[in-house]
Every structure is written in structure tokens, then in C-alpha cells.
């Protein structure tokens, strides 16, 4: 496989800042009649000229402060955003562990949600039926599988979501600091599964605040600061640079907060 799993060439992503956009017809009319210049909005550049390659089989860490653009990179790889400039190449199937359980419906049972979530992630019904026992077993849900997920504890919810998302067997796994949730035992299991993916030669892209995770897991790390790529190097060097540029990385306890 000569092509890299992911290649970013000079990628930029800008967002229009929302509060000044006419949100309703009334505002649109007002703007129209006042003949206000429509330049009341400004564009926010979330990413500026980002270029990097991720060869197949690499585990890449992305570090940076909240709001630095890490998650935006993952969303571009996942195909949620189309970059405003530059080009992105993705070779291989993707499983996004971006927000676990985003497609879950609270009134439906675990089993019904496995089906819908699996279909949303691009599996066929037959594949899901084949994988279902393994998904349920890994999630350790037991009899609750036929209860509506609104009755689940948050740990059960996360376990089921993680289990569905990783059952997809992707070429490229995108992980957005979700692994800081759940109890310690399940976290270990999650990391084991991610470790298996690594051994199978899959590509993993991991966004994290946790220096230890990056150090233990990644072959390489990117440091993003204010939308710019300021380091593309070994995890150790990237973490050292992080400390230099930003102050110290956040302590472990803080990483339990959702964010990105």
C-alpha cells in the first residue's frame, strides 16, 4: 500500500461565526431592507495550512489545548466537515469513536440501538446480526440488552456504544478522548481492544489530553496550537514541545472532563 492512510495537504477550515448570521426569515428581511453590508459576520479559521501524512499501521496522537482544532481534524477525516481549502485523502474504511452513542435512541432497547447504530456506521443488517452476540458480550450488558437504553447507567451506555463502534472492524480508527470515561476495568478492556487493532496493523488516530496515553500508545504525535501544526514528531518530543509552548499538559484528573 503505497498511499498513506490519511494525507492532509495544506488543509484549512474556517467557520462562520454564528451569532451574526440571520437565523430567521425576519432577520433576513430586516437585513435585506436595511441593505446592511452582509459582512457583519467574520470567519474563524479553525485550521490553517495543515499538512501531514499518516502511513498505514501508524498510531498517531494529536495533542493541543481545548479549541486548538484537534477535533476538527478528526471530523474532517471522518467526512463530517468538508475542508474550506486544501485537499484530504483517506484510504480505507473509517470508524469514528468521536461521540459514543450519538445515534442512540433512548426509548429503544439496546438490541434495537445496536441495529440502528451499526447501520449508521455503514454495516449491513446481516453483518450486524452476525456481530451482535460479540457486541453484547463485550459490553457486559447482560439482560439489560432488551431494556430501553434510557434505563442504562452511563457506564453501560458507554460500554455498549464503544462495543458497537469497534465491532465495525475499520482500517482507520478515530478516537476522540472518549476513553477517559467508564470504570477502570472497562477502560483497560477498551485499551486492550485498541491495542489489538494496532497489532493487526490498523491505523489509529487518537486525540487526547492525557500525556501518558500518548506516550504509551503512539508512534508519532502532532501538536496543534491555535489551528496551526507546530510539531510533527515523536510523542516524547511533541509532549516536551507542548510544555514549552503552552505550559504543562493538563494533569490526569482534568482529562476526565469531556471536551475537545
Amino acid at each position, binding site marked *: 500500500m503505497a498511499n498513506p492512510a490519511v494525507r492532509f495537504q495544506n488543509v484549512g477550515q474556517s467557520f462562520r461565526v454564528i451569532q451574526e448570521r440571520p*437565523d*430567521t*426569515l425576519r432577520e*433576513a428581511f430586516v437585513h435585506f431592507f436595511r441593505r446592511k453590508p452582509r459582512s457583519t459576520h467574520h470567519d474563524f479559521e479553525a485550521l490553517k495550512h495543515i499538512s501531514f501524512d499518516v502511513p498505514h499501521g501508524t498510531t498517531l496522537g494529536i495533542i493541543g489545548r481545548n479549541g486548538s482544532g484537534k477535533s476538527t481534524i478528526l471530523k474532517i477525516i471522518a*467526512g*463530517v466537515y468538508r475542508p474550506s481549502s486544501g485537499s484530504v485523502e483517506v484510504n480505507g474504511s473509517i470508524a469514528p469513536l468521536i461521540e459514543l452513542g450519538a445515534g442512540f*435512541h433512548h426509548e429503544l432497547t439496546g438490541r434495537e440501538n445496536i441495529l440502528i447504530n451499526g447501520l*449508521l*456506521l455503514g454495516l449491513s*443488517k446481516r453483518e450486524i446480526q452476525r456481530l451482535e452476540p460479540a457486541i453484547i458480550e463485550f459490553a457486559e450488558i447482560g439482560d439489560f440488552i432488551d431494556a430501553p437504553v434510557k434505563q442504562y447507567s452511563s457506564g453501560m451506555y458507554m460500554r455498549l456504544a464503544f462495543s458497537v463502534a469497534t465491532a465495525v472492524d475499520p482500517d482507520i480508527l478515530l478516537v476522540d478522548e472518549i476513553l477517559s470515561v467508564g470504570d477502570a476495568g472497562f477502560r483497560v478492556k477498551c485499551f486492550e481492544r485498541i491495542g489489538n487493532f494496532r497489532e493487526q496493523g490498523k491505523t489509529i488516530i487518537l486525540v487526547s489530553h492525557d500525556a501518558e496515553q500518548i506516550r504509551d500508545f503512539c508512534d508519532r504525535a502532532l501538536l496543534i496550537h491555535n489551528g496551526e501544526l507546530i510539531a510533527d514528531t515523536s510523542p516524547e518530543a511533541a509532549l516536551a514541545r507542548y510544555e514549552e509552548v503552552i505550559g504543562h499538559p493538563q494533569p490526569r484528573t482534568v482529562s476526565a472532563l469531556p471536551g475537545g
Partner: protein
Amino acid sequence: MLQLFSDVYRYRELIWALALKELRVRYKRSVLGFVWALLNPLMMMIILTLVFGSIMRFSIDHYAIFLLSMLLPWTFFSQALSYSVESVVSNAQLLKKVRVPKLVFPMAAVVANIINFLLSLLPLALLIVVLRFPLHWTWIYLPIPMVGLFLFTLGSAFFFAAINVFFRDISHIVQILLSAWFYASPIIYSLDFIPKKYHIFFRLNPMLYVLNGFRLSIYYGMLPSPGSTAMSLACGVAAVAIGFGLFCRYQDTFVYYI
């Protein structure tokens, strides 16, 4: 249009699962569950029959059936539209996180209501038998006006769901539009009551052609003219071309506005 067919085929399992989900959630936690899909229209029909059969009498024979022959497809149209207009926006959380084909959401809302509509034809047939009204052989023609109706509804669903992403007022406007549209269409009355010189305005309403086949087949036991059938299919195809075209053109930008 071809694009639509291939996408629908590709995502058929997902669309079907989402449509069933919608129905399941609608009837969840009720003792009778799916029976409501049959019971609900049946109760409405009984009430209408009592009101128009004994209390208010019209010059139209068997007015309840006259009315229901168009009211059921209209109810489908208006419910499908009300559900689908919010369908993209209400899945914002999902669309922002995972790459999913956006067309499945309005599509699933329409499919869920198609199932409901088809189920509601059973109580109608039952009522017709009970009232000793003839169950015309022309019922077998119904799939053809249904194609026109479903396409027209789907096109409108795509159209309004897409605009609603950019202007949230649309979901309110659709409600008003639907009630105005209801009275502007000859559903509770017959076009015969309207002086000939105004017919020209009624003929501008696509719903006239889309609904016409239902009343002719169910109430009059007649087949619509080929011209009228062609018009209803043409309205359906045009609605899909416009609605789906608009939806496709803007779907990549949805994620920035929801």
C-alpha cells in the same frame, strides 16, 4: 432522480430501520401498541360518519366516504411533512459527529407515514362494507395515485427539511401552509360546488391532481382520465426533482448550520 433511486437502494436497510424506529417510538409504552395505527383512523372515521351521517346532512350521498377518500391521503401528506421538516435539524447531534447520508432522515419520516397510511386503508374498507356502500373494483387502481402522492410528499419533504436547516421559521410556516392548503383543495367539498369561472385557480393546485385518483377510485368507482393520472405523476416527479435537487445541493453545508 437516478441518484435518488440508487441512494435509496443503498441505504434501504437504514431507512427501513429508522422508519420502524419512528413508528415504534410513537406507539411505545401504550398498551395497544401498533393497534393504534388501525384504531386511530377507525375512531376518526366513526366520528365523521356519525356527524355527517345523522347530525349534519349534506347533499352528497354517503358524505363520510366522500370525505375520507381524500382526507386519508391528505392526512398522510400533512403528517409526513410535519415529521420530515424537522428531521434533519432534530438529528443535529448525530450529523455533527458521524458521517451519515442525510437523505435517510426525511426519507424515513415519509416511509413511516406511508406504513401508517396503508394501515388506515383497512379500517376504511371495513367501514365501507359496514355502511353497505359498494366496495368498488377500482380500488385495485389505487397504487397508481399512491405513486403520485408518495413522490409528491417525498419531494416536499426534502424541500422543506432542507430550507428548515437555514430558516427555522419554516417548520411553523409549514403548519400554516398546510391548513390553508387543506381548505384550498377540494377535500371537504367538491369542485362541482365552485362556480366554473374560479376553476382555473383550483387547477393551479398540484394537490388537486394528486388526490383526484383516490376519490374517483374509492367513492365514484371510476378510473381517472389518463390526462389526470399523467398530471398527478408529473406533479410527483417535478416535486422530487425540485426538492431532492435543492436538498443535494445544500446538504454538505447543513452541518455548519445545525
